[in-house]
């Protein structure tokens, strides 16, 4: 049992890292008022570019960097379309996912069978001996550690720097921010590019640290989960990491419980009803739906009146800002 739990925790952390990167990136973009539905495509772009770089140069650090830069470059299309052209952000994002998926599958074919060493494990002595948490948190790859460090970094950036303050202001009320002298467009670009860079890094983490290979579509919906995560986390970095590990944990659990079935004893009251229900609810595939279900529930709850103001989405999310001249 202990082994199972430890194994689960380890897998959770590793699975969650890419979610942390991607969701933090999306969080920043959305805080500036731009919804980026292209995360999945950007992750794949980052994954492929990072992988190719590592195969060619043998240096996973370089690969990781290139992956992030590639994601950022790809997201500049979304930035241009949404901010400068004020096009519909939904379409732009969804199409970029389609484009990213298509392009990476297309150009990635020759790289499918390659293998790399990727990021090795870096063990932190002493800490790794902690029960349960030790092996989960302190025996991972550099990108995993970086992901954890990124959370306070983003929190600090958004809440305790002038840039972050201005970004938050833009996402709530771009007109007021503009009146106060904030460069709305520039900062929106910055936010989207950060989002793209982190999405690219998320993908690179997958191909260089988590799986150490490349397959078309390898992100398997993580980009969409990251988008859901931002809402689930109510746009707060501290909650994003919790959500990332939660959602990551669910997918890790789903894999691990594939052969296992949960049931109560026959003598248990209502066993006839409970057991099939349990079997359904703990089925590994059904488990994988929980992040999405949870997000819908959170959204429904939060949309009830008062709560909307307290927590809640950046007010100007999805609105294209244009300075109205008289």
């Amino acid at each position, binding site marked *: 049992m202990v082994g199972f739990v430890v194994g689960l925790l380890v897998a959770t952390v590793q699975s969650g890292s890419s979610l942390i990167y991607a969701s933090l990136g999306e969080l920043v973009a959305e805080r500036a008022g731009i919804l980026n539905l292209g995360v999945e495509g950007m992750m794949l772009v980052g994954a492929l570019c990072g992988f190719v770089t590592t195969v060619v140069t043998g240096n996973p650090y370089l690969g990781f960097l290139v992956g992030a830069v590639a994601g950022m470059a790809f997201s500049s299309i979304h930035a241009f379309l949404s901010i400068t052209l004020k096009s519909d952000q939904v379409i732009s994002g969804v199409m970029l996912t389609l484009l990213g998926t298509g392009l990476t599958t297309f150009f990635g074919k020759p790289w499918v069978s390659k293998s790399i060493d990727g990021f090795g494990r870096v063990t932190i002595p002493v800490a790794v001996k902690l029960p349960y948490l030790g092996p989960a948190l302190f025996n991972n790859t550099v990108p995993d550690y970086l992901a954890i460090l990124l959370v306070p970094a983003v929190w600090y*950036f958004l809440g*305790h*720097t*002038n*840039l*972050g*303050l*201005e970004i*938050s*202001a833009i996402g*709530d*009320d771009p*007109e*007021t*921010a503009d*009146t*106060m*002298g*904030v460069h709305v467009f520039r900062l929106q670009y910055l936010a989207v590019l950060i989002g793209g860079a982190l999405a690219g890094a998320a993908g690179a983490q997958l191909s260089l640290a988590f799986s150490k290979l490349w397959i078309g579509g390898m992100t398997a919906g993580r980009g969409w989960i990251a988008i859901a995560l931002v809402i689930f986390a109510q746009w707060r970095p501290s909650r994003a990491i919790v959500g990332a590990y939660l959602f990551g944990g669910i997918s890790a659990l789903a894999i691990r419980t594939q052969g296992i079935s949960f049931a109560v004893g026959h003598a248990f009251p209502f066993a006839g009803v409970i057991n099939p229900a349990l079997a359904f609810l703990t089925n590994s595939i059904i488990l994988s739906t929980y992040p999405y279900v949870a997000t819908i529930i959170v959204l429904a709850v939060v949309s009830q009146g008062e709560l909307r*103001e*307290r927590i809640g989405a950046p007010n100007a999310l999805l609105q294209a800002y244009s300075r109205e001249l*008289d």
Partner: protein
Amino acid sequence: MSPTIIWPRLTGSVVSSVAADPDAFLELRGITKRFPGVVANDGVDLTLRRGEIHGLLGENGAGKSTLMKVLYGLYTADEGEVVLRGEFLRLHSPQDAIEHGIGMVHQHFKLIPRLSVVENVALGEREPAAQFRGRGGLVGRLGRAFSLGLAGPRQRIRDLSAEYGLDVDPDATVLELDVGQQQRVEILKALYRDVDLLILDEPTAVLTPQEAERLFETLEQLTDQGLTVIFISHKLNEVTAITDRVTVLRDGRKIATVETADVTRAELAEMMVGREVLFSLEREPVPVGDEVLAVRGLHADNDRGVEALAGVDLTVHAGEIVGVAGVSGNGQKELAECLVGLRRSTAGSIRVLGDDVTGRPPRHFVDVGISYVPDDRYRFGCAPALSVRDNAAMKDYRQPRFGEHGLIDYGAMVAYAESLVEDFDIRGVTDVEAVHAGDLSGGNLQKLILARELDREPKVLVANKPTRGVDIGAIEYIRERLLEKRTDGTGTVLISEELDEIFELSDRILVLYEGEFVLETTPDATNQDEVGLAMTGVRPEDAADAVEPAAGGGSA
């Protein structure tokens, strides 16, 4: 004691012929600003003395906001100059204005509710953390971007707060503050940037009387410290209580600048509100029928959750027009919306022909025979992107003549739309299907909306500022049609700011001020001055006081 009045010039010209006041701190000379179809400011002169509270008085549409937006850099005047301390100013943006020491507190606050007071005030200033302060070059810029030094601003806010008696907690979240406190944060924003001149745009529109008192104390403290204040308002009581001098604008022109102490409220009201009657219409006596609309004890909140209607009673009979006079912002919008079902009242009842419709959805109001001509015609009156045909049938599309069994007979709709265009002389409609409502001019669109609402023989018609923003020819036409409906037996609630319209059309007059009817009378029993005074908050009982010289306010 005769008032010192500077008589208005009737033409606009670029060079001002008024001698420069030696005490002048700020001068606006001959400011003219035009928009398509209207001259918002026509050769306006304004001179401000340092340390005074200067009131800018006028109805909506008089040009007060436009003038201040010119001063604040949001607009550029077509003609005229702004002179500050003897220097000509070229203002292209609010940032320019702030740099020259001109600050503005808007009617709709520019605050981010999620952020704290200090964050709101310091936004855009890029105050870095202590170690980066004053550093130049790349390090300085990065420091300013990537750090946040709120300690300095926080202290400064505390200091300013103490100095001016503002009592604001820098770390409070704006969301948690009440309206009065939020306004003080707006004032702080300006003070933080070292303004010498503070413009307040209708500051008491959102405040309770107690909060307004508090604001006045604050303004006195500000001017004691040497700040100059422009106080834009339409509320006569307040302007006379707080200002040193008052400038009255009307229809884009300056009527006069007077010392507050030298003028009576009645005189100010007359300057603000009187105008020649444009045309006179025949209003024959019509036998008044049964009660068609009965409103009792109606309370309603505005969009911000503040009470806008504080218990109104209203009765309308068939064949009568009840004019509700008042300056907008006193509950008119909320009254109109309650009467058509768009807004839920918080207390009270509405009955139409005896039928209690309180709390029912808008559809019920439509079905029961209420028609609505809203003041915001593009938002509530039509779908600008849809055709004239579709907009003509907006209210009645459910009627059998437009189709049965859930279908629509667009041929019938086209015929109907065309008949409306013809009957109501709507210009600019070559093809009811090809022309969109948004393509029509303001006057013609209003005629279309009116046509639609009147043609259905409503029992009750709610018309909110039906002739606002409409050209002269259409205005006369619309008023005639309203009278025609009155003869047909419709009971009309006419909400308007235009006194001549109220007097011309109404059988009874009610004045709405701060959510209550403060005067109920008939055109024969009163005159425009009395009603005008009531519109600005002076009740008839107090009217006698209003013809005494005002007490004057602020520091001399």
